[in-house]
């Protein structure tokens, strides 16, 4: 049956949003290893070399015992430095493994479930929402909120606060007009950035050059030329056009209107740089470019949305929680009650002024109609269905043109304390004798 099929969890497809959650610890493990390994290699080589040199020198009498001790102190200092670096990297690695274990445990919960109707699924999915929220907050720079939510839910190991804190820090420094932090990051990840053909470092170097030119001071401009020789000219094969623009910039004042030089001098270039950095940073870690919540919402809002959710002509009938419906519904009632002679109700028809469209215990408020998402969902398309999907079976038509499931009408009549043989409209509250109901078929 279609419903059972729809409720079944396909563990492969179900985790599209959770790919980065599972992969990031791995990416960070490698990054952590790289950032430790290179300096360690260098350091240990220099210790080895010095050791050999000293031993040889001592053997052929060129190095005095005093100098041997001095050299040994130097080696010791270096080794202690490397030891500290190792301890830092090892701690970080342990933390990343702890995160990986926590995420494995989190995914195991899902692996044990077969259908979304399983009671345990809700708990898992709620935790996923919390993860998506933290991801959203981090990417939009709401760092304190993200940390507060992660703490409140005790899920620090399931989210990546540090990774995004680093990103935010560098992004902010770029937005404030400083390239140092970003350049340092480029240096740390030189090889990987080259592998993915990122032009970030080139852009940053150009910006340094532009800033020196902007000063208009002779010495600074000379330095700019030296800077260009060292850091920009080497790119002339990769980015010939841009490099020639940089050369052309020599002839232009910062207040020029000539393009592309005006844009190069523009302060908005810092935002472009910040964006380019974020893109490179996310790409390097294999993280998606958009907040996961955006993806989940644009897919989910459409899937849940029906033509009824924003329909204004439907007299509020199909929009339980939507504020619009409550006035229209009440109006509808009054006219309907006035014209309807069939309502032989003994129970009083009460419609308090703020009666909220939706009717009964048995009506669930639609998430798209609910205040939180209604305006947001206005911008998405509604779901496509090729088959009718009805909440009730055994449909009956009331004289006012509204169709309900028979069982639901009976339940509502009982709850409203109606005498047997009468039913009450779940939305409008009109009361009719059961004999006036007509069966209808959706085939």
């Amino acid at each position, binding site marked *: 049956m279609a419903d059972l099929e729809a409720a079944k969890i396909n563990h492969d497809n179900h985790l599209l949003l959770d790919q980065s959650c599972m992969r990031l610890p791995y990416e960070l493990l490698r990054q952590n290893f790289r950032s430790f390994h290179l300096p360690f290699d260098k350091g240990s080589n220099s*210790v080895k070399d010095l050791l050999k040199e000293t031993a040889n020198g001592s053997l052929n009498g060129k190095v005095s015992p005093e100098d041997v001790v001095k050299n040994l102190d130097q080696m010791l200092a270096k080794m202690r430095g490397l030891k500290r670096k190792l301890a830092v990297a090892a701690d970080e690695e342990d933390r990343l493994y702890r995160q990986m274990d926590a995420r494995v445990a989190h995914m195991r919960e899902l692996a044990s479930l077969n259908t979304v109707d399983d009671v345990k699924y809700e708990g898992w999915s709620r935790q996923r929402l919390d993860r998506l929220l933290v991801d959203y907050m981090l990417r939009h720079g709401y760092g304190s909120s993200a940390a507060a939510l992660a703490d409140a839910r005790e899920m620090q190991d399931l989210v990546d606060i540090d990774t995004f804190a680093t990103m935010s820090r560098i992004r902010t420094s770029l937005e404030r007009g400083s390239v140092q932090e970003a350049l340092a990051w480029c240096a740390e990840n030189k090889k990987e950035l080259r592998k993915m053909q990122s032009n970030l470092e080139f852009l940053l170097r150009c910006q340094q050059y532009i800033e020196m030119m902007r000063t208009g001071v002779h010495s600074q401009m000379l330095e700019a030329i030296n800077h260009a020789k060292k850091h920009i000219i080497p790119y002339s094969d990769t980015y010939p056009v841009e490099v020639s623009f940089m050369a052309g910039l020599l002839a232009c004042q910062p207040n020029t209107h000539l393009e592309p030089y005006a844009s190069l001098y523009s302060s908005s270039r810092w935002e472009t740089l910040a964006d380019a950095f974020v893109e490179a940073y996310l790409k390097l870690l294999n993280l998606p470019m958009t907040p996961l919540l955006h993806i989940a919402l644009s897919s989910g809002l459409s899937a849940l949305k029906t033509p009824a959710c924003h329909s204004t002509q439907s007299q509020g009938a199909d929009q339980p929680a939507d504020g619009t419906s409550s006035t229209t519904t009440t109006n509808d009632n009054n006219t309907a009650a006035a014209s309807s002679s069939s309502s032989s109700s003994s129970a009083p028809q009460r419609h308090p002024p703020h009666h909220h469209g939706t009717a009964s215990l048995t009506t*669930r408020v639609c998430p798209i109609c609910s205040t939180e998402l209604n305006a947001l969902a206005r911008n998405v398309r509604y779901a496509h269905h090729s088959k009718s999907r009805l909440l009730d079976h055994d449909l009956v038509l009331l004289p006012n043109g509204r169709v309900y499931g028979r069982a639901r009408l009976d339940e509502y009549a009982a709850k409203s304390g109606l005498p047997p043989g009468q039913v009450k409209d779940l939305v409008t509250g009109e009361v009719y004798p059961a004999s006036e109901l007509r069966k209808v078929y959706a085939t």
Partner: protein
Amino acid sequence: MDSAKEKLTSLLDELSKASKLPRLSAAAQDVDKIIELLSEAREQIANGMDPHMASLTMTKLQNPIRTAFDKVNDSLKAASSTHKKIGRSLDKHFPLKPLPSDTDTMAKHIPLINRAIAMHLLREGQFGVAATFLDETQAKHPSSASSRPDDRMVQDGDEAVADGEDGMDGSGDADFSMLHSHELQDRFTEMYSILQELKTHNLLPAIEWARANSAELEARGSNLEFELTKLQYIWLFKGPAVNGLPDDENNGQIGALTYGRLHFGRFQGRHMREIQRLASAMVFAPNLPASPYHDIFSIDSAFADVASSFTREFCSLLGLSAESPLYLAATAGALALPQLLKYTLATRARGTEWTTAQELPYETPLPQSMLFHNIFVCPVSKEQTTAANPPMVIPCGHMLAQDTLQKLCKGNRFKCPYCPSEGLLKDARPVVL
């Protein structure tokens, strides 16, 4: 058949195994060893300061240091190979699939998303997080609260601009200004304190709330007030041994009787039969479990039940659904994402996008529990009915879309496509599902 599940399980098993394999920390021991060797040699040489002794010590130092460095390198290699193993497991069982992110339609509506998140946090009872979030979003977009009304005007060119405006007790829309006046927060604080009391089996605050909102609840066809009153009666009836309340004239059967006399009166119209049952149970008090009334007096899940219906009613009166819409939307999003992905890949390959402006071009099946409106697809045209093309009931009781009916018509008459009966167009009527 379920290879996807097996794949996930193998991935998780392999990752768990990898986390027990050698790590960087294993290298520490040999680094310490090197430091130890170097300092030993240093002490020896510094003590004697004899050139011959120095060169001898240094020569003897070479091999152990080299061995120790080799060991460090082995440890580093082992740590790195653990990483590679993890990478291979991920690539094999969980290959990276790109997400559809070329058109981020949500990026234009950050203030609306922020509002939804703030309301979600409040309804989850995360007041501290919500306060932090509101402060932070305000600091980042100082104008978002004031710019929201414009935002709405732009989006809601139509009558729907009144959306939610006339809701809840004239308190206005639950928008950012409401969040900031702390009104919504106060409501949810009230809800949580009542729920907290319910958890400790104190029904009185909930009863008080239900009584204050009695008219609205009744109009919704909610029995909450009566259910709460009834539970209080039963709770008192059970006496001090069960309810732990003071053993006085307000507790036990006498207390229940007094309570019932005082409060059941107002429910007599609607719940006479049940009140009679509750009262008659007094007679069987010595041996209730064997009486015909045992079912109403077993209240194992009663407190949890009233708590969940209280939450539902409380949210409904605020115009909010009982379950967090954000939760439902995110969950539905995860369920529908594979279809979206498949569609974007297919259209990108073809370089075309065929679409009706308002309807998704592909199906996103959701479980029944995520269905909130009736969906009627005309069995003839296979089109979903809308306000412009509503479902019609024809005299034989079959339903068709209005457009379909128009096409079926010959003059004023049509024949039902599902049964032998014929009808007149004027006898068909639009219905609301």
